[in-house]
C-alpha cells in the first residue's frame, strides 16, 4: 500500500508525464526470498531463538516477521565463513546448554527456561557462547527494527516526506 501511494505521488507530480518502470507493480513482501544453508531443524531452532529475544505479545514477535531468515541471510551473504561456522556451532551449544540445565532440547523448554539458557550462555566462560548470543541478538534487533512491520507501524516511516523542519517541539 505504501508503495502504491508513493508511485501515485510520482504520477500525480507529473500529470502522468513519465512512464512507470515494469518492476513498479511486481513487488511482494516475499520477494526478498528465503535463504537456507542450514538444515530445517537448525532453522527452526534459530526461529525459536529470535522469538525468545523478541517474543510475540499483542504485537508480532521476531519469528513471525521472519527475522531468523534475515539473520541467516546476513550471516550467509555479508558476514563470511567464520560467522557461518559460529552460527552452526552456536546452535549446537544452545541445545547442549539446554540439555545440561533442563535435560531437554531448547525448543522443548518454556519461555523462562529459554531466557535462562541464553543468560547462561552470555555469562559462560566460553567466549564462543557469549559471542554467538550477541551476534544473534544484534541481528534480531536490527532485523526487527528494520522490518516492514516495525518501520511502518512503530517508526511511521515515510520514504518521501516532502518536507524538512529543522526545529520542531518534541511531543511528550
Amino acid at each position, binding site marked *: 500500500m505504501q508503495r502504491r501511494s508513493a508511485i501515485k505521488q510520482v504520477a500525480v507530480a507529473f500529470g502522468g508525464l513519465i*512512464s512507470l*518502470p515494469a518492476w513498479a507493480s511486481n513487488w511482494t513482501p516475499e520477494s*526478498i526470498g528465503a535463504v537456507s544453508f542450514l538444515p530445517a531443524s537448525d532453522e527452526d531452532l534459530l526461529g525459536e531463538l529470535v522469538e525468545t529475544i523478541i517474543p510475540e505479545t499483542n504485537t508480532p514477535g521476531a519469528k513471525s516477521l521472519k527475522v531468523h531468515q534475515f539473520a541467516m*541471510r546476513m550471516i550467509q*551473504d*555479508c558476514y563470511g565463513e567464520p560467522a557461518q561456522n559460529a552460527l552452526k556451532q552456536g546452535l549446537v551449544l544452545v541445545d547442549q546448554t539446554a540439555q545440561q540445565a533442563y535435560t531437554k532440547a531448547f525448543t522443548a523448554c518454556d519461555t523462562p527456561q529459554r*531466557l535462562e539458557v541464553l543468560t547462561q550462555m552470555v555469562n559462560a566462560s566460553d567466549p564462543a557462547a557469549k559471542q554467538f548470543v550477541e551476534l544473534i541478538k544484534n541481528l534480531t534487533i536490527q532485523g526487527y527494527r528494520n522490518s516492514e512491520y516495525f518501520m511502518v507501524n512503530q517508526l511511521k516511516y515515510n520514504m518521501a516526506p516532502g518536507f524538512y523542519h529543522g*526545529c520542531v517541539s518534541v511531543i511528550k
Partner: protein
Amino acid sequence: MSFLNIDSVKERTFDAIVVGSGISGGWAAKELTGKGLRTLVLERGRDVKHVTDYPTTMMQPWEFAHLGQMPKAITDANPIASRCYAFREDAAHFFVKDAEHPYVQDKPFDWIRGYQVGGKSLMWARGTQRWSDYDFDGPARDGFAIDWPIRYADIAPWYSYVERFAGISGNKDGLPQLPDGEFLPPHEMACVEKHFSEQMAKHYNNTRPVIIGRCAHLTKPQPIHLQQGRGQCQNRSLCQRGCPYGGYFSSNSSTLPWAAKTGKMTLRTDSVVHSIIFDEKKNKATGVRVIDAHTKETKDYYAKIIFVNAACLNSNLILLNSKSTRFPNGLGNDNGLLGKYIAFHNFRTTISAEHEGFTDSITEGIRPNSSYIPRFRNVFKQETDFLRGYAAGFGANRVMNVDTAGMGESLKTSLMETKYGNWRVGSHMMGETIPKETNYVALDPALTDAWGIPQLRISVAYDDNDEKMIKDFHEQMTEMLTVAGFMNIQTHDKPDKAPGLDIHEMGGVRMGKDPKTSLLNKWNQLHTCKNVFVTDGACMTSTSTQNPSLTFMAITARAADHAVKEMKKGNL
C-alpha cells in the same frame, strides 16, 4: 534500406562530438545542440534512461535483502569501489567494479567511477557552491599554482545561466568568499546548526559564517524545470538511486533529454573512446576513434569541434593516448605537462560532538543537504603556516537512543519506546590541495585494459600542507565547538584513507595564459589544437575549497558558447 549504398563516412560525421555524458558532457550536449549543431555524444557505458532505468528508486528499506549492506563476496571483489559511502545495495549498480576497469596505483588512490549515461551525475552528493575571486586569483596571490586565465567576473554570468536551468537551492548570505547565486528557496537549518551559526557570529565577529549548503535540488520548481519534465524534490535523500521526480539535477533528468528534444543529438552508448584523431595537414583534430564496448570493433567519427568530458582522469587518459607525429606525447602536450598537477579535495578527517541542550526540540522530515562552513582560513590574508584553506560540511541531528539491554518482553518494550538522546553534530573537512607536478597520471607502458587501451598509472598523494591543514581543522573546529557549548568532541582522522574517495579529482589539462605552463587557454581550447575543448575537472588550474561540479557546468556552457561563435566565424 539495406540495399542503398550508404556513404559511411558521411554518416559518421557530425558538427560536434562530446566525449562523456556526465555532468559536464551533458551540459556540452545541451549547449551545442541548442545552438543547432548536430552533436554526437559518446558514452562508454550503458544507457540509463531517466526513471525507467532506476531499478531501486522506489524500493523500501526492508525490500533490500541485506538492508543496504553489500554482500561480502562483492566487497571482497571490489575493495576500491566498496570504500565509497554510496556503494551500497541500492546504488552499487551505478559504480564501476574494480576488476572490469583496472588501473595502476603508483600510490594508493581510490578512483571512483560511474560508466553509464549520466556518469557520476546520478550518484553525486549535489553540493553546488560557487567559487569566488579568492579562488580564481588565489594562485596569482599565493603563488601555489599558475595564474588562472579567468576571474570570477568571467564566469559569474555562466554560473547564473546554469543555476537557473539546473535548479540550485540556497540562501543569499552575502559572503565574499562564497558568492550568492540564482537560488531556489534554501533548506532549513536545524536548531543546533542555527545555534552554532549564532555562536560563531558572536565569538568570531562574523568571520566564520555557518550557512545552509547550496545544493542542486528543486525546492520550488520553476517553469524551466517543469518544461524539463522535472518536479519538486520530495525530501527522500535517496538520490544516489536516481530520482524519479527529477528532484535533483542529473544529466539523465535534465540536460540530455533537453538536448535530445532538439533532434540534433545522437547518443552512442557502449562506445569507449580510444583517442582523438589529429590531422597533420589540417593542423587540427578531425574526429574521435571509438572502440565498441562489446564487439571491440574500432570506428572513427568526425566533427569540426570536439569536447572532451570523460571525467578528469579519463580525459587525461584519452589525450595522453592521442598520439601522432605532431604530438608524440599526447594531444596538445608540447610542454610535457599533460597529466601533471593533479589535485583533489582532502576529505580525510571528520569531527563529531554532542550538545546537552535543546532537549525540547527535534527535526522532522528529511533534508538532502547539510549546513556548510565556507573557508575562513587565509581568505583575506595569509595567516597560517599552510597555503589555502578548507570548507566543511556541518550537520546536526537528534539521535534516537535505543535501549538494547535485556532479552524477551523487556527488550521488546524498550525497542518500542521513543527516547531522544543528545543532539549530535558532525563535520567533514573539504581541504584544498596544492596542484603539484609530482601528483600526476601517466599511461602504463605495458598494461592495457580489455579494449587494448593503456591502463592509467595514478601517482597522487597528500603532502605536508595537507597534514598541517588537517591539524588546523582539528584545532579550529575543536575550539569552535567548545565555544558553542559542545561536549564529547572527537576527531576522526583516517591517515590510511587514500586520495580519490573525495571524488573531486581535478587538473592534468589545466587552463592558463601561457602555453609553456598550461594546456588550455581561457576558453578551454587546447593551446595547440584549438578545436578540442576540455571542460571537465581536468581543466582546473587549482581546486578551491568549494565543490567543483557547478564550476564544471558553468565553464562548459561558457566554452560551448565560445566554440560555436568561433566555428561560425570559420576559426575552427
